[in-house]
């Protein structure tokens, strides 16, 4: 409950029309972004604990191991940026369905490798597609990522109020170093 408070506060502050309509100064917008970020960080603790609990329920014997699984959000996915993916050749994408009925969802994640395989928990290899990320004509500071493509796959029939994880491995992955170190 305590971990929800930051987001509760953020939602309270964002009843103000400036937070909704875009009439605020940029510094105010940046402050709203800061408040929301803190909310997401704290809610992430709950999400991670909840998903680990769901995993653990299936395999009680491995509770201690799965408790250690870090599950992170990438809040800059809207601009095709995710530092976890920039530095990992293999990663797991967990897709949580917040609706009370089954849904299917096209997952898009920014990647910098040349080829990838995506497997569902049964080991079935899913169809994937790599689509180029449009590059800006004018170089503007903002998006900081080596990713040049987006990996697309279809997460079909996600269970209601539940999740499914997909194991993704890449080959010919280019490891990027400090040049792309993400600034706060």
């Amino acid at each position, binding site marked *: 409950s305590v971990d929800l408070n930051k987001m509760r506060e953020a939602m309270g502050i964002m009843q103000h029309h400036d937070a909704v309509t875009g009439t605020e*100064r940029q510094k105010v917008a940046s402050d709203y972004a800061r408040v929301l970020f803190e909310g997401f960080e704290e809610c992430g603790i709950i999400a991670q604990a909840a998903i680990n609990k769901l995993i653990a329920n299936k395999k009680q014997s491995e509770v201690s191991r799965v408790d250690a699984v870090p599950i992170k959000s990438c809040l800059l996915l809207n601009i095709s940026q995710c530092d976890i993916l920039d530095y990992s050749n293999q990663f797991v994408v967990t897709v949580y369905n917040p609706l009370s009925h089954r849904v299917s969802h096209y997952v898009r994640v920014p990647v910098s490798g040349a080829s990838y395989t995506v497997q569902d928990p049964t080991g079935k290899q899913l169809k994937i597609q790599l689509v180029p990320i449009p590059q800006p004509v004018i170089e503007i500071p903002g998006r900081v990522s080596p990713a040049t493509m987006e990996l697309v796959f279809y997460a079909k029939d996600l269970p209601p109020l539940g999740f499914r994880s997909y194991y993704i491995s890449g080959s010919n992955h280019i490891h990027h170093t400090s040049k792309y170190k993400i600034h706060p």
Partner: protein
Amino acid sequence: GRDVILGNTKFNAVLDWETGSLKSMVLDRTKFSVSQDFYYYKGYIGDNKEFVNRSSGAYIFRPNGSEALSVSSTKKSSTYKGDLVDETHIKWSDWLSQVVRYYKEDTYHVEMEWLAGPIPVDDNVGKEIISRFKSDLLSDGLFYTDSNGREMLERKRNFRPTWSVNIKEPVSANYYPVTSRITLRDGDKEFSILTDRAQGGTSLNNGEVELMVHRRLLHDDAFGVSEALNETAFGHGLVAIGKHWLTGGNISSGTAAQRTRSLQQQVLLSPWLFFTPADNISFTEWV
């Protein structure tokens, strides 16, 4: 040299092969003409001494004149087709582009991801950028906008339901808040655009819908901020990115309502993604 078709026989969007411009759509096997383009309004410059002479600014949308100007007439596009998604990347200018997407499985919508900014103001003109859709729907001056997720409200151009109105600013006086959706109807046909955020929108002519996506203004509107809505980050004007989704269908068969509801749930209560690095974990171990 052939136009790009995104979709199938029941639902599709046809784009011009060279520019990527939307030309027509098929909803429930019914074809209708629809185009989309980006325009901008020049911001009005007033002296702020009286209400009727205030500048366009953070709180007031007040274009200088009623005509929106085209952002660019020379668009360039490239199309990427695959097993899961077809998409066309369209460039209007150095500061405005859009990706049009059609996902192939069970999809009855087209996604448009626009990227606008930094809006150039070297000419000392503030600009308010809109995405405008023109169709052959006979909408009879009516359009529908949602009201903070409550209900769809009917809006009638140049009209107020409870008093006799004398419209002096035909563009801004017809703008309404669109928190998630704006819709046109013609007989049994319905055409909706869903937004990913609250935006201003209207229908200034029958069959037309427009939504404001970004603004950069050089004068204060004297409503208290005391500064123009001319923001920068890293020394550049702001860049905004967002999505519009186009969908529709027949009203009597319920497909329009069903598709819109389903799409709203998909995009407004979208699945959450979480990531775990697994460089040292094999698939078998992970399973």
